[in-house]
């Protein structure tokens, strides 16, 4: 189980690295691979309830935009549902903590939202089902000016539309 997860994370990291290299062009063609063909209504309902129970907040390290391994299970649940129901849509809101400059943090928030978007696309979600926006450091969750507060603010929020 653990080993499988490790292997998966490494695989994804590699894919992300390749994707990052060709900046942005990837998103359009991805997603068609897994279709809704096999999904029955009951199946979709089941995936939906799993997705709704999954975490919608994903956290990051300072000045970093790579996904943490602990985010993957929950993101998989969202990806499965989004792939099964092509009418479903999510908005990914990227955020940064207050340290560092505001415009840079706006760019960092976008990178974080894009990393989540890329992961979902690799898992079969259509890029058109995903909208991303960055709020930089302008909408902190926590007002605590310490490591604890800052780590809560470096996040992507996944919101079903």
């Amino acid at each position: 189980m653990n080993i499988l997860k490790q292997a998966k994370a490494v695989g994804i990291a590699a894919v992300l690295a390749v994707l990052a290299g060709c900046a942005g062009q990837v998103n359009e063609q991805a997603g068609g691979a897994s279709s809704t063909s096999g999904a029955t209504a009951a199946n979709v309902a089941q995936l939906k309830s799993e997705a709704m129970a999954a975490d919608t907040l994903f956290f990051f390290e300072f000045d970093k935009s790579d996904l943490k391994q602990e985010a993957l299970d929950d993101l998989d649940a969202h990806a499965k549902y989004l792939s099964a129901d092509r009418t479903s849509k999510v908005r990914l809101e990227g955020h940064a903590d207050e340290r560092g400059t505001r415009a840079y943090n706006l760019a960092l928030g976008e990178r974080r939202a894009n990393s989540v978007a890329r992961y979902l696309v690799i898992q079969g979600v259509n890029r058109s089902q995903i909208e991303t926006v960055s709020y930089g450091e302008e909408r902190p969750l926590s007002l605590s000016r310490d490591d604890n507060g800052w780590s809560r603010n470096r996040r992507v929020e996944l919101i079903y539309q």
Partner: protein
Amino acid sequence: MRLLIWLAMAFVVAMPARAELVIEITRGVENPIKIAVVPFRVKSSGAFDVDLARLIESNLERSGQFIRVSRDTMLSLPGPEDQIFYRDWRAIDSEYTVVGSIERDAQGLLVRYGLHDVFGERVLFAERIPGSQESLRDIGHYISDRIYEALTGIKGIFSTRLLYVSAERRSEKDQTFKLILSDADGGRPRTIFQSSEPILSPAWSPDGSRVAYMSFRGKRPGIYVQTLATGEVQKVTDFKGLNSAPSFSPDGRKLVLTLSRDGNPEIYIANLRTGELERMTNHFAIDTEASWSPDGRSILFTSSRGGKPQLYMLNVADKTTKRVTFDGDYNSNGAFTPDGESIVFVHRTNERFHIARMNLKTRELRILTETDLDESPSVAPNGTMLIYATSDEEKGLLGLVSMDGRVRVRLPSISESVREPAWSPFFN
């Protein structure tokens, strides 16, 4: 030891509106000029809502180069027509004395004032300024500029303006952001744009007639240029992704800004008349926070291409880039000083964020502030000071610091959290 004047006992500038900024000098210079500004004599019935003498002495003191002689110690309160007994002013250590009067007349009102050199025992100059109740603060700033320039040889910045963003937060998703225009001393704050979504990166056009900023109209951010006199708003860009960090070219015709429409944050130049866009960088890292040099030939920007945010210089003609900062693992949000010889930016040392200045030729780096989370430096048009954003336990504040780091003034706001200050150019 050193004759540093500590004015830790904060003094408060009398200002009518509640939302205005309060000035508090935390450090001063050695041997500031001692100046007595005598309360302006009111020569007609009825009061005026601006105390010109207070406004002038506060302006001069905020520069760090002056210190006021307290009203309480003055032996007499002469008006501009009265004979000045220089001995009395020497006795209380005043080097210069300002006397003035204000009266209503058929046209509105008339202000007279004169500046006296106490040791030289002579009038340096005297003026009569006609105006109105609404222009009293402008007159006070004008007089401050005249005195400052006469005694320091440097053009004053008291008639310039500030732009900044205030935020009032009720919860994470319930906030009110305001773009505020005020006098250089924080007086007469006026909201020029308001939104429930973030407002960022306000920037002045070189002639001071327009401002550019990032805001959301709808759910998407865009870059907008607003004409101050008319309130007219021009949309410059609202592409998918980032539209951020605008800065005007020295001729006012273009904006340099950040777009991620091609998948990644890159620096672009937008022609404001034709709408034409030119991509200036091409790198998979973050490129943002561009700022034009005074000669228009270079653009300073932040890039994470070296792994951490650092400042780079872009040659506008051939698009080549050169790394500028090497000290510290976080240098960002740079801007040029008006003479183009130095840059100011946010610099992290020992896990704290300060404002630093670096001379581009000698590469000498000087840290100017000592609070934490200092950001958004914006240099005054006469190059003597910069304004920046910092914060206390609860909210954002603005601070001023002289370019040698010696003089520090805090401008804490009374109610809202403030950030993103931008100092205007000269208007005259």
